[in-house]
Structure formats: C-alpha cells, structure tokens
C-alpha cells in the first residue's frame, strides 16, 4: 500500500529498474538509427509535488521538446528534451543534412517527431511488457522554446486533480558526437499505484 507520498527502498529500486529497462530499449533503437554507441545515465526518480518539477530541469536556453501522451494504466506524458545542437546533430545523422544556423523546418520537425515516436514507443513498450500493464501512446507533438515553458505546459496538461507526480528522468549521450538528451516521464498517483501493483505481482507479493 502506498499513500502516494512515500515509497519504500524496494519500490524505488524497482521503479528505477523499470526506467532503466525503458531507456535501455529506447537508446538501443536510437543507436540503430544513428549507428553509434549510446551511453545512458542511471535514472533519476522522484515522487514530488507537481509544482516542484521545474526546479529539476531549469534551463534558460531554448530546447527542443517532443511530447507523447500516455494513456491506459499509466496516464501522463513522455517528453524527449534535446538541446538545439543535439537535435541538429541527430537530424544530420539520420537524414544526412541539417542547417545549424536556422530553426527547424518542416522536414526536420518530422524527423524529430519520428525520433521521439521510436524512442518513446520502445521505452513504453519495454515498460509495459515488463510490468504486464497496458499503456497507449499518442502521436508526438513538438516545440522549440524555453525549457521552463515546455515543462510548464506539460504540468498544465496533467489533470487538475493531480498534486504529486512521479518524475523519472533518464539521460543519454553519444560521446563522439557531443549528443546528449533526456527522456522524462510524468505520471500521476493512480498510475504509480498501477505500476507498484504490477511490480508486487512480478515479485509474487
């Protein structure tokens, strides 16, 4: 039983492992797309009030955010965050060219959306297969703007009834290309409960 505010060490470890599996699959698909070795960080997992999230991702530079909505047993959002230079470099690796001096044209935006689609899709399907829960994914939507405003928008989209949010941040890097990005997952307390129930089932409790 969880009151939504506290997690046991076991639950924390298990959720972190779920994040690990997700980012592992997502970066494997990225690695195949760009034909490079991708490194991943240890997932940073927090259960905290929604309004404290912005402080964890504060960054004044404009960033690329591609968002996918999660539906089903886990409700919330998956957000792929990339610096401009990382996004341009990934586009270049995928389609062979990109103009770093400009913003993002239609073609580049669709590459970024597809990238998020593939990474998000593999992340979420690995997670739902592992936990045997059903999670649906929306089509991606993209913005290139202040990172605080992107996070602000995601928080606004979370239901009005949500106070606490499970925030799972994983980072990936491609060293030789100076590429680094983040995948953030935001889910509500009900979804957290579904995931913890699934974890309990897995370990036979």
């Amino acid at each position, binding site marked *: 039983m969880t009151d939504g505010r506290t997690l046991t060490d076991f639950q924390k470890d298990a959720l972190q492992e779920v994040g690990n599996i997700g980012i592992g699959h997502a970066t494997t698909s990225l690695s195949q797309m760009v034909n490079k070795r991708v490194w991943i960080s240890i997932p940073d997992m927090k259960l905290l009030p929604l309004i404290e999230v912005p402080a964890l991702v504060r960054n004044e530079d404009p960033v690329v955010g591609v968002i996918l909505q999660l539906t089903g047993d886990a409700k919330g959002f998956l957000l792929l965050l990339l610096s401009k230079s990382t996004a341009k470099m990934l586009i270049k690796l995928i389609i062979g060219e990109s103009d770093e001096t400009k913003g993002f044209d239609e073609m580049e935006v669709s590459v970024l959306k597809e990238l998020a689609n593939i990474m998000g899709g593999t992340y979420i399907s690995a997670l739902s297969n592992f936990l045997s829960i059903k999670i649906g994914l929306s089509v991606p939507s993209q913005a290139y703007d202040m*990172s605080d405003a992107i996070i602000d928008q995601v928080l606004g989209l979370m239901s009005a009834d949500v106070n606490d949010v499970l925030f799972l941040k994983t980072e990936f890097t491609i060293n030789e290309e100076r590429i680094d990005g983040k995948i953030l997952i935001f889910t509500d307390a009900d979804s957290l409960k579904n995931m913890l129930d699934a974890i309990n089932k897995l370990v036979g409790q």
Partner: protein
Amino acid sequence: MDKKPEKIIIGIADYVVVHNPAVLVTIGLGSCVGISIRDPVARFGGLAHILLPSIKESNNKENPLKFADSAIEIVVDTLLKKGCVKSRLEAKIAGGASMFTFGTNTMNIGERNVEAVKQKLKEMNIPLLASDTGANYGRTIEFNIASGVMSVKSAFNGIKDI
C-alpha cells in the same frame, strides 16, 4: 536612487505581493498565466503564476494558488490587507499559450486559463489594462511595480512591454 530594484522570482502556483520598488519575475509560462495586480497610488503590486482555470473543477483543492479564480482572490485579499483600495486595483496578464497539440484533441488548457482569469477579474471589477496571451510560444515576464509595466520576453518573438 538609480539603484536597480530587487528582482523577486515567483514559481509555479506561487504569488508575491510587495511594496515598490521591486520587479516581480516569473520564468517560462507555457499554458500557465501570469497575473499582475497593482494599486498605483498605494504603490503595492502582486504577481501570481497560475496553472489551471478553476478550483471548483478540481477534486484536489489543497493548493488554491494553482487555480486562476482562487489565486486572484488571494492576491486581492493580500493587497487589501496591506491597505490598497479595491477600486484602484488594475491588472495585466500574459501567458496561456498552447505549445503542443495532439491531433484533433488540442486540450487547450492555455485558452481556458486565460478565459478563467478574465472572468474572475471581471467578476471582481478589476480592469484588465493589457494582455499578451495565447499563440504557441512560452513567455517570461517581469513586472515593474513602480511603473506598472509588464515586460514579456519570449525565445524567438522578442520582448513586448505591455
């Protein structure tokens, strides 16, 4: 006397009410709305950063500063307690963008936030002097209590003083 006024940063679901001179800042409004309310004579002003339209629609009323209607009441209450006069209060707002769309379901929370703020201000008879809302980009605002100017910055759409 030309010392720069102190900058006070306001987070999400937060507000500050202070006496002149001060500049109230809120960073990265997406669908959220920043609301400034000022009494130019008493020289007090406040800024709130709201996340959602109405406390009435929510099952979780723990934090009234999250919602447009209840947050405006709190800011106005605080101003009145500091000796401001209701009939002198004036407001400016910015934010309420819609940066992401999902197919046909646009879920335009930004638009709903702006509507709720305007509705509440009207209900309380507080004139809305200026606004910069909507569109699809984020905003950072700096509200100068002395001048009443709200400076609205964006990543690619320049700075607008309203």
